[in-house]
């Protein structure tokens, strides 16, 4: 077989791939629509179907004319642009097709399909390095596949090394490191496995193999995690109990059960206020002045009877229980945010308890002087809540304003420091200095896939030490600073003995002490 005809064969193979992709247009299009919820899709569904018909009939010129016409109305539409790329590819207008798919990857970096088609076109043109980079990006749109692919590569490399050992009669096991595969820490893919059974089963097989190899390690990690969770729960319970105790002991000295119940109610309300804080803050701040005036008036008018007091307490208790139930449900739902929120909630609780104690005292004074209607007392309570929230919001805002002003003042200077941090990080990575590399991450770095800090750090260590050579180059960096947060967008050229990736990246830095540390990593720019 002459080399020429060989070349021919491989090109045909790739052509076939493009055609296959083209025939899947409908599937891919709906996927695009589903991912981006492009509202225009429904509007031009019939046009889309016309275009598909033309394509199936091989009338690419007409299909292109039609697509361009619809695109004029919806220039950003991913599905239409994707279709246009397919038509151009079918017409062998590779350069134009490449341009269309390239732009799509820029505008929709999370879509794997444009990267894939880009790779097919590059490969057909013999630009294999570019094809590989594009396919790599396609896999990276889904971190699960990217990890699985990397793991698969490691397993293949290990199998290859075993084959070489047999070929060269090398004693296996001698100085051959085991591959360090990466465990996924959470399930963010398709859990039903219904739509892509082939992938699902492949993933299951992969998982089985990995489970066997790392069963012990996984079990240990599971145990550690359970232990940590338990500890966290105990801590939370202790905190809660303490807060309640404080409130109760304060209230008891004045007025035993009624006040305690009320404090609990206040606390629940405060919890809720904290949960709703984001929205409540603004409204509360707006109304703060009016509320305060009203509260003053209400307090002056307060004359509560002993009996009314008791009735109100009973009502408060029922309300508190209801609120606590709701809060619990909400808490369960938002486990991911649990720790942060509880901290905030605890601070609020302390304040609320304080407020409640003061109020209980005021109530008692008022009760000794006057017996008034319970409705008034309830109003007073709500207002006091609002007051507490408003005061806090105001204080927060003032603090934030102050910090912001300060941050802006030193922003320009900080930009240089952030850039230095970015370069230091890239250098540590390139040098495979794992200690220094990890040192560039904030203690509250948002690890991908919800891994614990320790798991993540181990994974990074393994990945970096695994490579023979790493080079990370950073260019075109832009820094924008907002208070303690710096967002850096840049171009990253990663180069190892296994992989070359040229991509847009975003790093979120946070200032901790006098250092800028990485809080978040994102692909795309």
């Amino acid at each position, binding site marked *: *077989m*002459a*080399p020429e005809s*060989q070349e021919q*064969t*491989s090109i045909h*193979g*790739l052509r076939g*791939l493009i055609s296959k992709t083209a025939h899947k247009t409908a599937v891919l299009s709906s996927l695009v629509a589903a991912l981006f919820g492009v509202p225009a899709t429904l509007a031009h569904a019939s046009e889309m179907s016309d275009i598909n018909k033309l394509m199936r009939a091989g009338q690419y010129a007409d299909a292109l004319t039609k697509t361009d016409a619809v695109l004029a109305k919806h220039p950003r539409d991913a599905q239409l642009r994707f279709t246009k790329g397919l038509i151009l590819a079918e017409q062998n207008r590779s350069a134009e097709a490449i341009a269309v798919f390239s732009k799509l990857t820029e505008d929709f970096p999370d879509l794997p399909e444009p990267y*894939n088609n880009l*790779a*097919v076109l590059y*490969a057909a043109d013999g630009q*294999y390095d570019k*094809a*590989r980079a594009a*396919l790599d990006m396609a896999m990276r749109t889904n971190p699960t596949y990217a990890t699985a692919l990397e793991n*698969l*590569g*490691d397993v*293949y*490399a290990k*199998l*290859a*090394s*075993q*084959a*070489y050992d*047999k*070929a*060269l*009669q*090398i004693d296996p096991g001698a100085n051959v490191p085991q591959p360090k595969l990466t465990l996924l820490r959470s399930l963010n893919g398709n859990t039903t496995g219904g739509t892509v059974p082939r992938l699902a089963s492949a993933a299951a097989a992969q998982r089985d193999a990995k489970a066997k190899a790392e069963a012990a390690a996984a079990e240990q990690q599971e145990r550690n995690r359970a232990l940590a969770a338990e500890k966290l729960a105990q801590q939370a319970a202790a905190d809660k109990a303490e807060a309640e105790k404080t409130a109760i002991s304060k209230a008891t000295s004045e007025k035993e059960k009624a006040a305690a119940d009320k404090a609990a109610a206040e606390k629940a309300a405060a919890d809720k206020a904290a949960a709703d804080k984001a929205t409540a803050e603004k409204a509360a701040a707006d109304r703060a002045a009016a509320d305060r005036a009203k509260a003053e008036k209400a307090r002056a008018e307060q004359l509560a009877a002993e009996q009314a007091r008791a009735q109100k307490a009973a009502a408060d208790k029922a309300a508190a229980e209801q609120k606590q139930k709701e809060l619990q449900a909400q808490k369960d739902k938002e486990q991911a945010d649990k720790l942060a929120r509880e901290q905030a909630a605890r601070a609020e609780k302390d304040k609320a308890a304080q407020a409640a104690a003061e109020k209980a005292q005021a109530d008692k004074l008022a009760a000794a002087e006057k017996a008034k209607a319970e409705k008034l007392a309830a109003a007073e309570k709500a207002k006091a809540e609002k007051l507490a929230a408003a005061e806090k919001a105001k204080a927060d805002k003032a603090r934030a304003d102050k910090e912001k002003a300060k941050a802006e003042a030193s922003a320009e200077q900080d930009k240089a420091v952030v850039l230095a941090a970015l370069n230091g990080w890239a250098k540590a990575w390139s040098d495979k200095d794992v200690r220094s590399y990890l040192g560039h991450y904030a203690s509250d770095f948002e690890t991908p896939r919800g891994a614990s800090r320790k798991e993540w750090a181990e994974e990074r260590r393994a990945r970096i030490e695994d490579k023979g050579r790493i080079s990370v180059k950073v260019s075109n960096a832009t820094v924008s600073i907002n208070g303690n947060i710096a967002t850096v967008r840049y171009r990253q050229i990663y180069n190892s*003995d*296994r992989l070359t990736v040229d991509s847009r990246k975003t790093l979120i830095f946070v200032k901790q002490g006098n250092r800028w540390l990485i809080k978040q990593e994102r692909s795309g720019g």
Partner: protein
Amino acid sequence: MASALQGRPARMLGRLLMLCLAGLPAMGSEASSSSIPPQGNTAGAPAAKPDPEALLIDIYKDLGANRLREAQAKADALVAAYPTFRLGHLVRGDLLLMHARPVRNFGAMADGPGDKLKELRDEAMVRIRSLQEKPDPKLIPKAVLQVGEDQKNVLVVDTTRSRLYVYENQGGELKYMTDYYVSQGRFGANKTKSGDQRTPIGVYYVNNRIPGPKLPDFYGTGALPLSYPNEWDKRNGRSGYGIWLHGTPSDNFSRPPLSSDGCVVLANPDLQSLYSTAEVGKTVVVISQHVQFVDKSEWAKQRDAASAMLEQWGQSLENADADKVLSYYSPEFRSAQGENLATWFGRQQKSLNGARYTSVKLRDVSLFRYPGTPEDMIVSTFTQESAVGKSKNAIRKRQYWVREGSQWKIIYEGNA
């Protein structure tokens, strides 16, 4: 997507293979089937194991054509059937490694032992080339001019190609049967002295058969010792001994092309096939550096010429004209004992006691063009039946003939 993904790493190795395999697929399939050794025991042999070399070549062809999945399946099958075939493991390793990183050469292992890798790469290249240069079955090795009626087959070794070709004697005609990969001496061919780890070039006879159980594992399932050093080697002062055809150790299906101490080493199944048909004192092994092939009519012409040359010598013995007989001998003649022509011829005449041959007949004649000599040389082996009056005798003889000008002359003659 998978094929595009895999296309890239395969490409570089693929290019290399395409160069190696260029222009041979038409012959390839034929060669694959014809290189399956003939089964010695035909007692309803079960579905035979795949021919490992044919499978290996198919894997390389798949690789060259970017059919990685097929190549992988065949590589898996190859090492399953021949777990000690190291080259099979090597190509399988390359196929697996392509999933992890680009593969640019046979045996792309990152930091493998260079010498061992080189040996395996050499074996791969030699095996691929042998397919490319597979002899046309209609052609005949130029060196084999005539085989005796008593010789079932003749073995021809090409040290450059690391190949042994088997030809069967079918009524005086030579028929190509099969060919095998062989290993030779660590330093190649042209053995001159003991311990030089080279394989001799020449025409040799199998002079023993040693079954596997009597041998250390290293020699495999059997050995066929050769007649090195022969008359010509001795005359040229070549020393050494123990040049055999033998098999491979149980843990190694095939050895690198240059790896023996001078022996010709075959995979055990191939050795067994030769062993079963080899006959002591009859089976000839012609070892040359580059086997040349000629078509049948050219071969017949050369055979007839050589045959006539010998016949004329035989007829000259029936005349009493000593000068006529002597004209067939070269001044460079030396006997096995080192006598010159005059001394040796005088002794011959004396033994006849003045009588003369009444008839001379030659039978079981074999004629080989001797490889590796700068000038043309032919070695003849035959049984000479002579009658002096009523007494008859038969003697097995060997002669070496060289061309002097337009004449062929005998420079050695002795008992065989």
